């Protein structure tokens, strides 16, 4: 049995629920949607930046989830499976909007880290606004690493850029957030 660790959606996703989905039970699809929609919608919202695009992307992603549920071999891996589908749809959405993820010049990561380690002060609202104000490329890398907890290598594969570029963009994004939050205080 796999439970989604999201307080807003405590419904556990069981093997039985997945089995019912595989039989095409619409009520089971609804239960699955209820269990994951909030967490997945938050991913979409962070990645696309607005409610309308987030909802459209979420809908597209769930159409794929329902259509491919037969391919899911283990109910235990359903969270990672759905999350990856949602993230892929978000990235497709960004690409459709002509967002390109390009290689950047490497910077000294150690130097950047030392700045960040000096201390961080701020509020949740200030951080949210600062992240939202980031350039799309930086924001995508930061969201995938900080919130969706993908590794630099996984993000590099998703965006088809080098791992060092991901690290550099992440450090720059973090520094920009820190500066924007500091300016607000």
């Amino acid at each position: 049995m796999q439970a989604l660790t999201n307080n807003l959606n405590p419904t556990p996703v069981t093997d039985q629920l997945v089995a019912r989905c595989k039989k095409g039970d619409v009520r089971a699809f609804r239960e699955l949607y209820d269990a994951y929609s909030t967490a997945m919608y938050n991913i979409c919202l962070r990645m696309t930046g607005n409610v309308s695009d987030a909802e459209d992307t979420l809908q597209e992603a769930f159409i794929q989830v329902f259509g491919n549920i037969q391919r899911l071999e283990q109910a235990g891996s359903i969270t990672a499976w759905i999350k990856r589908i949602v993230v892929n749809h978000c990235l497709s959405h960004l690409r459709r909007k002509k967002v390109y993820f390009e290689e950047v010049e490497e910077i000294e990561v150690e130097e950047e880290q030392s700045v960040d380690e000096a201390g961080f002060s701020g509020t949740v609202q200030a951080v949210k606004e600062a992240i939202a104000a980031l350039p799309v490329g930086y924001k995508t890398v930061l969201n995938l690493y900080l919130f969706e907890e993908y590794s630099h290598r996984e993000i590099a594969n998703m965006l088809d850029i080098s791992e060092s570029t991901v690290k550099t963009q992440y450090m720059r994004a973090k520094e920009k957030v820190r500066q924007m939050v500091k300016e607000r205080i």
Partner: protein
Amino acid sequence: MSEKNLEDFIRQHRAGFEEEGPSPRVWKGLEQQLKAQQRPAGVVHMLKRHWLKAAAVLVLVVNSVMIYQFLQFKKQQQDLGTIAPELQEARVYYTSQIEQRLDDIRKYPPEALGLDSTARKELELRNDTYDMLEKELQANPGNERIRSAMVRYYQLKLDLLDKILEELQAKQPATKTFNHHEREI
């Protein structure tokens, strides 16, 4: 608010970064998609669930086609019996007699027979002359001359084989004692 770094801050305030779920329009859209897909997908889904039954039906259909083709083939073979029933009786008799003599002749080594492969092939029951006569008979079932020619063909072949056997027995008796074949027709 002072934190060690941005990562720690986000981890500690993760719930504050979560928005409420999507609007009901997302599920409504999904529900419509599910209903629309269920009709055409139903056939595919049924096939997936009942693949064994589908396979059994397929085997039955293939078998029926094969049995039909076999019966058609047999019917073609039996055409002579339909076209000329009295000739069919003669054919059964002569065929068995000829095959019996051919079996006896085959017991002798080819060098004792003193015939080349082409001549030996000509001795066989079904040769070009036989095939031609049978085709002619099927094309002209009422033609008495062709019927007579067919019977003559059998008789000549039987006579020839008898003579060959007599000579062989005179020159080099086979290990097995041959019966004298008497013709009844």
